[in-house]
Protein backbone atom coordinates (compact mmCIF):
# COMPACT_ATOMS: atom_id res chain seq x y z
CA UNK A 1 0.00 0.00 0.00
CA UNK A 2 1.33 3.39 -0.97
CA UNK A 3 0.48 6.11 1.52
CA UNK A 4 1.14 9.82 1.05
CA UNK A 5 1.05 11.99 4.16
CA UNK A 6 0.82 15.74 3.67
CA UNK A 7 3.01 17.57 6.16
CA UNK A 8 3.50 21.23 6.98
CA UNK A 9 6.09 23.18 8.84
CA UNK A 10 4.42 25.61 11.24
CA UNK A 11 5.52 28.20 13.80
CA UNK A 12 6.03 26.42 17.10
CA UNK A 13 2.56 26.47 18.75
CA UNK A 14 4.34 27.24 22.03
CA UNK A 15 5.86 30.50 20.77
CA UNK A 16 4.23 33.86 20.03
CA UNK A 17 3.34 34.99 16.52
CA UNK A 18 4.68 38.15 14.89
CA UNK A 19 3.61 40.04 11.78
CA UNK A 20 5.76 40.84 8.74
CA UNK A 21 5.77 44.30 7.11
CA UNK A 22 3.35 43.04 4.43
CA UNK A 23 1.03 41.87 7.24
CA UNK A 24 1.52 38.19 6.57
CA UNK A 25 2.31 36.01 9.57
CA UNK A 26 6.04 35.78 10.12
CA UNK A 27 7.59 32.38 9.52
CA UNK A 28 10.97 33.59 10.77
CA UNK A 29 10.90 31.92 14.12
CA UNK A 30 11.01 28.54 15.72
CA UNK A 31 9.35 26.15 13.32
CA UNK A 32 8.33 22.57 13.84
CA UNK A 33 6.53 19.75 12.05
CA UNK A 34 2.83 20.46 12.67
CA UNK A 35 1.84 18.38 15.72
CA UNK A 36 -1.32 17.26 13.89
CA UNK A 37 0.83 15.98 11.02
CA UNK A 38 2.93 13.96 13.46
CA UNK A 39 -0.27 12.05 14.25
CA UNK A 40 -0.88 11.55 10.51
CA UNK A 41 2.65 10.22 10.01
CA UNK A 42 2.21 7.88 12.98
CA UNK A 43 -1.07 6.49 11.61
CA UNK A 44 0.54 5.96 8.18
CA UNK A 45 3.46 4.11 9.77
CA UNK A 46 1.09 1.87 11.71
CA UNK A 47 -0.86 1.08 8.53
CA UNK A 48 2.39 0.28 6.75
CA UNK A 49 3.44 -1.99 9.59
CA UNK A 50 0.13 -3.85 9.34
CA UNK A 51 -0.25 -3.98 5.57
CA UNK A 52 3.20 -3.34 4.09
CA UNK A 53 3.97 -0.63 1.56
CA UNK A 54 5.60 2.76 1.49
CA UNK A 55 5.05 6.08 3.31
CA UNK A 56 5.84 9.23 1.35
CA UNK A 57 5.75 12.71 2.92
CA UNK A 58 4.70 15.59 0.68
CA UNK A 59 5.12 19.18 1.80
CA UNK A 60 4.94 22.66 0.37
CA UNK A 61 7.04 25.40 1.87
CA UNK A 62 10.36 27.20 1.82
CA UNK A 63 13.65 25.32 1.58
CA UNK A 64 13.87 24.95 5.33
CA UNK A 65 10.62 22.91 5.36
CA UNK A 66 13.02 20.03 4.61
CA UNK A 67 13.52 19.93 8.38
CA UNK A 68 9.83 19.12 8.92
CA UNK A 69 10.02 16.35 6.32
CA UNK A 70 13.25 15.10 7.89
CA UNK A 71 11.46 14.86 11.25
CA UNK A 72 8.81 12.58 9.70
CA UNK A 73 11.51 10.53 7.96
CA UNK A 74 13.26 10.04 11.29
CA UNK A 75 9.99 8.66 12.68
CA UNK A 76 10.17 6.04 9.92
CA UNK A 77 8.63 7.40 6.70
CA UNK A 78 10.44 6.24 3.55
CA UNK A 79 11.00 9.37 1.48
CA UNK A 80 9.89 12.95 1.00
CA UNK A 81 8.81 15.42 -1.64
CA UNK A 82 9.16 19.18 -1.09
CA UNK A 83 7.43 21.64 -3.37
CA UNK A 84 9.29 24.90 -3.03
CA UNK A 85 9.01 27.95 -5.25
CA UNK A 86 9.22 31.68 -4.57
CA UNK A 87 5.92 31.99 -6.48
CA UNK A 88 4.25 30.07 -3.68
CA UNK A 89 4.92 32.63 -0.94
CA UNK A 90 1.55 33.59 0.51
CA UNK A 91 -0.27 30.89 -1.51
CA UNK A 92 -3.98 30.58 -0.73
CA UNK A 93 -5.65 27.26 0.08
CA UNK A 94 -6.55 26.54 -3.55
CA UNK A 95 -3.03 27.10 -4.91
CA UNK A 96 -1.64 25.00 -2.06
CA UNK A 97 -4.09 22.21 -2.87
CA UNK A 98 -3.31 22.44 -6.60
CA UNK A 99 0.43 22.18 -6.03
CA UNK A 100 0.05 19.28 -3.59
CA UNK A 101 -2.39 17.50 -5.92
CA UNK A 102 0.02 17.73 -8.84
CA UNK A 103 2.86 16.25 -6.79
CA UNK A 104 0.68 13.54 -5.26
CA UNK A 105 -0.94 12.46 -8.54
CA UNK A 106 2.36 11.25 -9.98
CA UNK A 107 2.84 9.04 -6.91
CA UNK A 108 -0.47 7.21 -7.57
CA UNK A 109 -1.08 6.52 -3.86
CA UNK A 110 -3.74 4.25 -2.39
CA UNK A 111 -4.23 6.61 0.53
CA UNK A 112 -3.57 10.25 1.25
CA UNK A 113 -3.53 11.16 4.93
CA UNK A 114 -3.80 14.77 6.11
CA UNK A 115 -4.38 16.32 9.51
CA UNK A 116 -7.90 17.70 9.92
CA UNK A 117 -6.41 21.18 10.05
CA UNK A 118 -3.05 22.83 10.52
CA UNK A 119 -1.97 24.33 13.82
CA UNK A 120 -1.24 27.75 12.36
CA UNK A 121 -4.09 28.26 9.89
CA UNK A 122 -6.61 26.00 11.61
CA UNK A 123 -9.14 26.28 8.82
CA UNK A 124 -8.95 22.77 7.34
CA UNK A 125 -9.73 23.84 3.79
CA UNK A 126 -6.84 22.22 1.92
CA UNK A 127 -7.85 18.55 2.47
CA UNK A 128 -11.32 18.70 0.84
CA UNK A 129 -9.86 20.73 -2.03
CA UNK A 130 -7.10 18.19 -2.43
CA UNK A 131 -9.61 15.30 -2.45
CA UNK A 132 -11.61 17.07 -5.15
CA UNK A 133 -8.55 17.78 -7.32
CA UNK A 134 -7.33 14.19 -6.97
CA UNK A 135 -10.83 12.86 -7.67
CA UNK A 136 -10.78 10.92 -4.39
CA UNK A 137 -13.60 10.41 -1.87
CA UNK A 138 -12.87 12.00 1.49
CA UNK A 139 -13.07 10.20 4.82
CA UNK A 140 -12.78 12.97 7.35
CA UNK A 141 -12.28 13.66 11.06
CA UNK A 142 -11.10 10.10 11.51
CA UNK A 143 -10.25 8.99 15.01
CA UNK A 144 -9.83 5.40 13.83
CA UNK A 145 -8.86 3.91 10.46
CA UNK A 146 -9.21 0.33 9.26
CA UNK A 147 -8.07 -0.94 5.89
CA UNK A 148 -9.27 -4.22 4.50
CA UNK A 149 -8.42 -5.00 0.92
CA UNK A 150 -9.38 -1.98 -1.13
CA UNK A 151 -11.84 -0.63 1.45
CA UNK A 152 -10.98 2.09 3.94
CA UNK A 153 -13.26 2.46 6.92
CA UNK A 154 -13.04 5.25 9.49
CA UNK A 155 -14.76 6.40 12.65
CA UNK A 156 -15.65 9.98 11.79
CA UNK A 157 -15.93 12.20 14.82
CA UNK A 158 -19.20 14.16 15.05
CA UNK A 159 -20.59 16.63 17.57
CA UNK A 160 -22.36 13.91 19.54
CA UNK A 161 -20.39 10.76 18.80
CA UNK A 162 -19.10 9.27 15.57
CA UNK A 163 -20.15 7.86 12.22
CA UNK A 164 -18.75 4.79 10.54
CA UNK A 165 -17.83 5.87 7.00
CA UNK A 166 -16.28 3.72 4.31
CA UNK A 167 -15.03 4.13 0.76
CA UNK A 168 -12.93 2.29 -1.77
CA UNK A 169 -9.34 3.33 -2.14
CA UNK A 170 -7.77 5.45 -3.42
CA UNK A 171 -9.15 7.84 -0.83
CA UNK A 172 -8.13 10.85 1.22
CA UNK A 173 -8.41 10.56 4.99
CA UNK A 174 -8.17 13.44 7.45
CA UNK A 175 -7.16 12.40 10.94
CA UNK A 176 -7.69 14.05 14.30
CA UNK A 177 -5.08 14.15 17.05
CA UNK A 178 -6.96 11.26 18.71
CA UNK A 179 -5.87 8.87 15.95
CA UNK A 180 -2.49 7.82 17.33
CA UNK A 181 0.16 8.95 19.78
CA UNK A 182 3.17 9.94 17.65
CA UNK A 183 6.32 7.93 18.34
CA UNK A 184 9.62 9.52 19.22
CA UNK A 185 12.28 9.27 16.58
CA UNK A 186 14.95 6.82 17.72
CA UNK A 187 18.63 7.65 17.33
CA UNK A 188 18.74 4.97 14.65
CA UNK A 189 15.78 6.58 12.93
CA UNK A 190 17.44 9.98 13.01
CA UNK A 191 20.64 8.56 11.50
CA UNK A 192 18.70 6.66 8.82
CA UNK A 193 16.69 9.75 7.89
CA UNK A 194 19.87 11.57 6.85
CA UNK A 195 20.27 9.38 3.80
CA UNK A 196 16.60 9.20 2.82
CA UNK A 197 15.61 10.98 -0.37
CA UNK A 198 13.81 14.34 -0.36
CA UNK A 199 12.89 15.24 -3.90
CA UNK A 200 12.53 18.97 -4.55
CA UNK A 201 10.02 20.29 -7.10
CA UNK A 202 9.06 23.73 -8.41
CA UNK A 203 5.68 24.83 -9.79
CA UNK A 204 7.25 24.57 -13.26
CA UNK A 205 8.24 20.94 -12.63
CA UNK A 206 4.63 20.25 -11.68
CA UNK A 207 3.12 22.19 -14.57
CA UNK A 208 1.05 24.27 -12.14
CA UNK A 209 0.34 27.92 -12.89
CA UNK A 210 -0.57 30.41 -10.21
CA UNK A 211 -4.26 31.21 -9.77
CA UNK A 212 -5.57 34.57 -8.72
CA UNK A 213 -5.64 34.39 -4.92
CA UNK A 214 -9.14 33.97 -3.46
CA UNK A 215 -8.62 37.00 -1.30
CA UNK A 216 -6.69 40.25 -1.16
CA UNK A 217 -5.91 41.59 2.30
CA UNK A 218 -7.08 45.20 2.31
CA UNK A 219 -6.21 46.00 5.88
CA UNK A 220 -5.50 44.61 9.29
CA UNK A 221 -6.89 46.15 12.46
CA UNK A 222 -6.69 45.20 16.09
CA UNK A 223 -9.46 42.87 17.18
CA UNK A 224 -11.88 44.22 19.74
CA UNK A 225 -10.46 43.25 23.04
CA UNK A 226 -12.24 42.87 26.32
CA UNK A 227 -11.06 45.03 29.13
CA UNK A 228 -9.35 43.18 31.90
CA UNK A 229 -11.48 43.09 35.00
CA UNK A 230 -10.44 42.42 38.52
CA UNK A 231 -7.74 39.84 39.24
CA UNK A 232 -7.61 38.52 42.79
CA UNK A 233 -5.40 36.05 44.63
CA UNK A 234 -7.44 33.30 46.23
CA UNK A 235 -7.12 34.02 49.93
CA UNK A 236 -10.17 31.94 50.80
CA UNK A 237 -12.71 34.60 49.81
CA UNK A 238 -12.55 33.97 46.05
CA UNK A 239 -15.52 31.64 46.13
CA UNK A 240 -17.72 34.35 47.66
CA UNK A 241 -16.57 36.76 44.95
CA UNK A 242 -17.45 34.27 42.19
CA UNK A 243 -20.85 33.58 43.75
CA UNK A 244 -21.54 37.33 43.80
CA UNK A 245 -20.66 37.62 40.10
CA UNK A 246 -22.90 34.65 39.26
CA UNK A 247 -25.75 36.18 41.21
CA UNK A 248 -25.29 39.54 39.53
CA UNK A 249 -25.35 37.83 36.11
CA UNK A 250 -28.61 36.20 37.22
CA UNK A 251 -27.44 32.68 36.58
CA UNK A 252 -27.72 31.85 40.26
Amino acid sequence: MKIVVTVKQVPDPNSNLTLEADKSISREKEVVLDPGDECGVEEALQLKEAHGGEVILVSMGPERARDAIRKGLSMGADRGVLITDSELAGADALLTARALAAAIKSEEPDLVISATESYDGSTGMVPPMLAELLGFPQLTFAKKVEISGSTAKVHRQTADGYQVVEASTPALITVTAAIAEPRYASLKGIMAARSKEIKQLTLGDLGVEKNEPAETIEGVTDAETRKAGEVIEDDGTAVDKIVAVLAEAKVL
Partner: protein
Amino acid sequence: MASILVYAELSQGKVATTSLELMTKARELGDVYAVALGAGAKAAAATLGKHGAKVVHVNEDPAFDDYIAEPATDALASLYEKEKPDLIMFGFTSDSREVAGRLAARLGSGLISNASDVVAKDGGFVAKVPYFGGAKVASMKANGKPAIVLVRPKSFEVSEKGGTAEVKELDAAVADGSKRAHVTERVVEASEKVKLEDARVVISGGRGMGGPQNFPLLDELASALGGAVGASRAVVDAGWVPYSMQVGQTGKSVRPGVYIAVGISGAMQHTVGMKTSKIIIAINKDAEAPIMKMADLGVVGDALKIVPALTAAVKAKKHG
Protein backbone atom coordinates in the same frame (compact mmCIF):
# COMPACT_ATOMS: atom_id res chain seq x y z
CA MET B 1 -28.96 43.68 -6.49
CA ALA B 2 -26.45 41.04 -5.53
CA SER B 3 -27.69 37.48 -5.30
CA ILE B 4 -26.67 35.49 -2.26
CA LEU B 5 -26.93 31.73 -1.97
CA VAL B 6 -26.96 30.28 1.54
CA TYR B 7 -26.08 26.62 2.00
CA ALA B 8 -28.59 25.53 4.65
CA GLU B 9 -27.17 22.69 6.67
CA LEU B 10 -29.79 20.28 7.97
CA SER B 11 -29.35 18.41 11.20
CA GLN B 12 -31.87 15.65 11.81
CA GLY B 13 -34.13 17.33 9.25
CA LYS B 14 -33.98 20.76 10.89
CA VAL B 15 -32.15 23.84 9.68
CA ALA B 16 -28.96 24.26 11.72
CA THR B 17 -28.88 27.42 13.84
CA THR B 18 -25.66 28.47 12.12
CA SER B 19 -27.48 28.50 8.77
CA LEU B 20 -30.25 30.73 10.18
CA GLU B 21 -27.56 33.11 11.48
CA LEU B 22 -26.25 33.36 7.92
CA MET B 23 -29.73 34.28 6.70
CA THR B 24 -29.72 37.38 8.91
CA LYS B 25 -26.55 38.67 7.25
CA ALA B 26 -27.45 37.49 3.75
CA ARG B 27 -30.62 39.66 3.85
CA GLU B 28 -28.46 42.74 4.32
CA LEU B 29 -26.28 41.84 1.36
CA GLY B 30 -28.83 41.14 -1.37
CA ASP B 31 -31.53 38.80 -2.64
CA VAL B 32 -31.34 35.59 -0.67
CA TYR B 33 -31.63 32.12 -2.12
CA ALA B 34 -31.05 29.00 -0.08
CA VAL B 35 -30.36 25.39 -0.87
CA ALA B 36 -31.42 22.54 1.43
CA LEU B 37 -30.48 18.94 0.69
CA GLY B 38 -31.52 15.64 2.21
CA ALA B 39 -34.28 14.53 4.56
CA GLY B 40 -36.46 17.40 5.74
CA ALA B 41 -35.41 19.81 2.99
CA LYS B 42 -38.98 20.76 2.03
CA ALA B 43 -40.03 21.48 5.60
CA ALA B 44 -36.79 23.42 6.04
CA ALA B 45 -37.81 25.66 3.14
CA ALA B 46 -40.65 27.10 5.22
CA THR B 47 -38.25 27.99 8.03
CA LEU B 48 -35.81 29.52 5.58
CA GLY B 49 -38.63 31.57 4.04
CA LYS B 50 -39.45 33.06 7.43
CA HIS B 51 -35.82 34.06 7.74
CA GLY B 52 -35.75 35.87 4.43
CA ALA B 53 -35.15 33.36 1.63
CA LYS B 54 -37.01 34.27 -1.56
CA VAL B 55 -36.38 30.92 -3.17
CA VAL B 56 -35.28 27.64 -1.61
CA HIS B 57 -33.88 24.94 -3.85
CA VAL B 58 -34.62 21.55 -2.35
CA ASN B 59 -33.83 17.92 -3.04
CA GLU B 60 -34.65 15.13 -0.60
CA ASP B 61 -32.53 12.35 -2.11
CA PRO B 62 -31.25 10.28 0.87
CA ALA B 63 -27.83 10.18 -0.80
CA PHE B 64 -27.24 13.68 0.57
CA ASP B 65 -27.36 12.29 4.11
CA ASP B 66 -25.67 8.98 3.40
CA TYR B 67 -22.59 10.10 1.45
CA ILE B 68 -20.01 12.65 2.57
CA ALA B 69 -19.61 15.92 0.64
CA GLU B 70 -19.66 14.75 -2.97
CA PRO B 71 -23.43 14.63 -3.70
CA ALA B 72 -23.86 18.07 -2.15
CA THR B 73 -20.90 19.41 -4.14
CA ASP B 74 -22.47 18.15 -7.38
CA ALA B 75 -25.81 19.76 -6.52
CA LEU B 76 -24.21 23.11 -5.65
CA ALA B 77 -22.04 23.11 -8.75
CA SER B 78 -25.05 22.52 -10.97
CA LEU B 79 -27.07 25.15 -9.11
CA TYR B 80 -24.22 27.62 -9.54
CA GLU B 81 -24.18 27.06 -13.29
CA LYS B 82 -27.91 27.80 -13.48
CA GLU B 83 -28.25 30.68 -11.06
CA LYS B 84 -24.79 32.27 -10.99
CA PRO B 85 -25.07 33.73 -7.46
CA ASP B 86 -22.52 36.43 -6.62
CA LEU B 87 -21.82 35.03 -3.16
CA ILE B 88 -22.24 31.58 -1.63
CA MET B 89 -22.29 31.54 2.16
CA PHE B 90 -21.51 28.50 4.30
CA GLY B 91 -21.26 28.05 8.06
CA PHE B 92 -17.72 27.31 9.21
CA THR B 93 -18.74 23.87 10.47
CA SER B 94 -17.18 20.49 9.81
CA ASP B 95 -19.87 19.34 7.39
CA SER B 96 -20.10 22.60 5.47
CA ARG B 97 -16.38 23.13 5.11
CA GLU B 98 -16.00 19.78 3.38
CA VAL B 99 -18.61 20.71 0.79
CA ALA B 100 -17.29 24.26 0.41
CA GLY B 101 -13.72 23.04 -0.09
CA ARG B 102 -14.65 20.63 -2.84
CA LEU B 103 -16.91 23.21 -4.51
CA ALA B 104 -14.25 25.94 -4.43
CA ALA B 105 -11.73 23.56 -6.01
CA ARG B 106 -14.19 22.41 -8.65
CA LEU B 107 -15.24 25.93 -9.63
CA GLY B 108 -11.65 27.17 -9.35
CA SER B 109 -12.90 30.09 -7.31
CA GLY B 110 -11.11 29.54 -4.03
CA LEU B 111 -12.77 30.66 -0.83
CA ILE B 112 -12.43 32.67 2.36
CA SER B 113 -12.91 30.70 5.56
CA ASN B 114 -13.35 31.42 9.24
CA ALA B 115 -14.94 34.84 8.62
CA SER B 116 -16.68 36.70 11.43
CA ASP B 117 -18.50 39.14 9.14
CA VAL B 118 -19.15 39.94 5.48
CA VAL B 119 -19.81 43.40 4.07
CA ALA B 120 -20.69 44.61 0.59
CA LYS B 121 -18.10 46.91 -0.96
CA ASP B 122 -17.63 48.30 -4.49
CA GLY B 123 -19.99 45.74 -5.99
CA GLY B 124 -18.13 42.90 -4.29
CA PHE B 125 -17.68 41.48 -0.81
CA VAL B 126 -15.18 41.96 1.95
CA ALA B 127 -14.91 39.35 4.68
CA LYS B 128 -13.63 40.12 8.16
CA VAL B 129 -11.41 37.30 9.30
CA PRO B 130 -9.77 36.78 12.70
CA TYR B 131 -6.09 36.94 11.94
CA PHE B 132 -2.83 36.52 13.69
CA GLY B 133 -4.34 34.09 16.14
CA GLY B 134 -7.36 36.31 16.69
CA ALA B 135 -5.49 39.36 18.03
CA LYS B 136 -6.21 41.16 14.77
CA VAL B 137 -8.93 41.23 12.16
CA ALA B 138 -8.06 41.20 8.46
CA SER B 139 -10.37 42.71 5.85
CA MET B 140 -10.19 40.34 2.92
CA LYS B 141 -11.64 41.27 -0.43
CA ALA B 142 -13.12 38.20 -2.12
CA ASN B 143 -11.75 37.77 -5.64
CA GLY B 144 -13.49 34.53 -6.55
CA LYS B 145 -16.39 34.19 -8.95
CA PRO B 146 -18.48 33.22 -7.14
CA ALA B 147 -17.21 34.58 -3.85
CA ILE B 148 -17.39 31.72 -1.35
CA VAL B 149 -17.24 32.69 2.32
CA LEU B 150 -17.46 30.43 5.37
CA VAL B 151 -18.67 32.27 8.46
CA ARG B 152 -18.04 31.24 12.06
CA PRO B 153 -21.08 30.14 14.09
CA LYS B 154 -22.51 32.76 16.47
CA SER B 155 -21.31 35.64 14.29
CA PHE B 156 -24.87 36.95 13.78
CA GLU B 157 -28.13 36.81 15.72
CA VAL B 158 -30.93 34.68 14.32
CA SER B 159 -33.95 36.83 13.47
CA GLU B 160 -37.18 36.13 11.63
CA LYS B 161 -38.34 38.51 8.99
CA GLY B 162 -41.56 36.80 7.99
CA GLY B 163 -42.21 35.67 4.46
CA THR B 164 -42.70 32.62 2.37
CA ALA B 165 -40.09 31.15 0.11
CA GLU B 166 -40.83 29.79 -3.30
CA VAL B 167 -39.79 26.13 -3.19
CA LYS B 168 -38.01 24.85 -6.27
CA GLU B 169 -37.14 21.22 -6.75
CA LEU B 170 -33.45 21.11 -7.51
CA ASP B 171 -33.08 18.83 -10.48
CA ALA B 172 -29.88 17.11 -9.47
CA ALA B 173 -29.92 13.35 -9.62
CA VAL B 174 -27.00 12.13 -7.54
CA ALA B 175 -24.55 10.35 -9.80
CA ASP B 176 -23.39 6.91 -8.70
CA GLY B 177 -19.83 8.14 -9.08
CA SER B 178 -20.44 10.54 -6.21
CA LYS B 179 -21.81 7.88 -3.88
CA ARG B 180 -18.44 6.97 -2.43
CA ALA B 181 -17.76 7.99 1.18
CA HIS B 182 -20.67 6.04 2.62
CA VAL B 183 -22.01 6.63 6.14
CA THR B 184 -22.96 3.12 7.24
CA GLU B 185 -23.59 3.72 10.93
CA ARG B 186 -24.24 6.63 13.31
CA VAL B 187 -23.20 6.27 16.92
CA VAL B 188 -24.30 8.73 19.61
CA GLU B 189 -21.90 8.84 22.55
CA ALA B 190 -22.52 12.10 24.32
CA SER B 191 -25.72 12.38 26.30
CA GLU B 192 -25.48 16.09 26.98
CA LYS B 193 -28.13 17.25 29.38
CA VAL B 194 -27.60 20.85 28.35
CA LYS B 195 -26.20 21.61 24.89
CA LEU B 196 -22.93 23.49 25.06
CA GLU B 197 -23.96 25.99 22.39
CA ASP B 198 -27.22 26.81 24.15
CA ALA B 199 -26.11 26.80 27.81
CA ARG B 200 -26.41 30.01 29.84
CA VAL B 201 -23.39 28.97 31.85
CA VAL B 202 -20.39 27.19 30.36
CA ILE B 203 -17.58 25.81 32.50
CA SER B 204 -14.53 24.82 30.47
CA GLY B 205 -11.44 22.99 31.60
CA GLY B 206 -7.90 23.06 30.25
CA ARG B 207 -4.55 21.56 31.11
CA GLY B 208 -4.68 23.20 34.53
CA MET B 209 -7.29 20.60 35.52
CA GLY B 210 -4.35 18.22 35.88
CA GLY B 211 -5.93 15.26 34.12
CA PRO B 212 -9.18 13.71 32.91
CA GLN B 213 -9.83 12.29 36.37
CA ASN B 214 -10.59 15.82 37.61
CA PHE B 215 -13.19 16.74 34.98
CA PRO B 216 -16.07 15.37 37.11
CA LEU B 217 -15.42 18.39 39.39
CA LEU B 218 -16.54 20.57 36.47
CA ASP B 219 -19.54 18.32 35.77
CA GLU B 220 -20.69 18.79 39.35
CA LEU B 221 -20.38 22.56 39.17
CA ALA B 222 -22.17 22.57 35.80
CA SER B 223 -25.06 20.52 37.11
CA ALA B 224 -25.37 22.79 40.17
CA LEU B 225 -25.58 25.81 37.86
CA GLY B 226 -27.63 24.13 35.10
CA GLY B 227 -24.75 24.67 32.70
CA ALA B 228 -22.60 22.65 30.32
CA VAL B 229 -18.94 21.63 30.35
CA GLY B 230 -16.50 22.57 27.60
CA ALA B 231 -12.77 22.13 27.09
CA SER B 232 -9.71 23.60 25.42
CA ARG B 233 -8.16 22.07 22.30
CA ALA B 234 -5.11 21.05 24.33
CA VAL B 235 -7.03 18.63 26.53
CA VAL B 236 -9.14 17.32 23.64
CA ASP B 237 -5.97 16.63 21.65
CA ALA B 238 -4.51 14.94 24.72
CA GLY B 239 -7.54 12.62 24.73
CA TRP B 240 -8.86 13.69 28.15
CA VAL B 241 -12.34 14.54 26.86
CA PRO B 242 -14.17 14.10 23.54
CA TYR B 243 -14.01 16.60 20.70
CA SER B 244 -17.71 17.37 21.17
CA MET B 245 -16.64 19.44 24.20
CA GLN B 246 -14.04 21.55 22.41
CA VAL B 247 -14.59 25.31 22.49
CA GLY B 248 -12.54 27.40 20.10
CA GLN B 249 -11.69 28.11 16.51
CA THR B 250 -11.93 24.50 15.44
CA GLY B 251 -14.46 23.54 18.06
CA LYS B 252 -17.71 25.12 19.14
CA SER B 253 -18.42 28.82 19.47
CA VAL B 254 -20.35 29.75 22.56
CA ARG B 255 -21.87 32.96 23.86
CA PRO B 256 -23.27 32.19 27.31
CA GLY B 257 -24.25 34.60 30.08
CA VAL B 258 -21.28 33.39 32.11
CA TYR B 259 -18.20 31.54 30.91
CA ILE B 260 -15.94 30.04 33.54
CA ALA B 261 -12.48 29.11 32.21
CA VAL B 262 -10.74 26.73 34.59
CA GLY B 263 -7.05 26.04 34.08
CA ILE B 264 -7.15 27.44 30.55
CA SER B 265 -4.33 29.81 29.59
CA GLY B 266 -6.36 31.56 26.92
CA ALA B 267 -4.66 30.80 23.60
CA MET B 268 -6.34 32.65 20.72
CA GLN B 269 -7.47 29.32 19.24
CA HIS B 270 -9.66 29.02 22.35
CA THR B 271 -10.70 32.61 23.01
CA VAL B 272 -12.02 33.09 19.47
CA GLY B 273 -14.77 30.64 20.43
CA MET B 274 -15.82 32.26 23.72
CA LYS B 275 -14.79 35.90 23.84
CA THR B 276 -18.29 37.21 23.16
CA SER B 277 -19.58 35.63 26.37
CA LYS B 278 -21.29 38.26 28.55
CA ILE B 279 -19.24 37.60 31.68
CA ILE B 280 -15.95 35.70 31.79
CA ILE B 281 -14.55 34.26 35.00
CA ALA B 282 -11.09 32.71 34.92
CA ILE B 283 -9.55 30.44 37.50
CA ASN B 284 -5.86 29.85 36.92
CA LYS B 285 -2.71 29.43 38.95
CA ASP B 286 -0.84 31.79 36.61
CA ALA B 287 -1.67 35.46 37.14
CA GLU B 288 0.07 36.28 33.82
CA ALA B 289 -2.03 33.88 31.70
CA PRO B 290 -3.63 35.69 28.72
CA ILE B 291 -7.09 34.67 29.90
CA MET B 292 -6.64 36.94 32.94
CA LYS B 293 -6.39 39.96 30.65
CA MET B 294 -9.87 39.37 29.24
CA ALA B 295 -11.71 38.03 32.28
CA ASP B 296 -14.20 40.15 34.20
CA LEU B 297 -13.05 38.30 37.28
CA GLY B 298 -9.73 36.46 37.41
CA VAL B 299 -8.97 34.24 40.36
CA VAL B 300 -5.37 33.19 40.90
CA GLY B 301 -5.37 29.93 42.79
CA ASP B 302 -5.70 26.17 42.77
CA ALA B 303 -8.63 25.14 40.57
CA LEU B 304 -8.88 21.75 42.23
CA LYS B 305 -9.62 23.44 45.54
CA ILE B 306 -11.69 26.37 44.31
CA VAL B 307 -14.07 24.43 42.04
CA PRO B 308 -15.42 22.01 44.67
CA ALA B 309 -15.76 24.87 47.16
CA LEU B 310 -17.64 26.87 44.55
CA THR B 311 -19.96 23.94 43.81
CA ALA B 312 -20.75 23.65 47.52
CA ALA B 313 -21.38 27.39 47.80
CA VAL B 314 -23.67 27.39 44.75
CA LYS B 315 -25.68 24.49 46.16
CA ALA B 316 -25.91 26.17 49.56
CA LYS B 317 -27.13 29.41 48.02
CA LYS B 318 -29.74 27.64 45.90
CA HIS B 319 -31.13 25.73 48.83
CA GLY B 320 -30.61 28.45 51.40
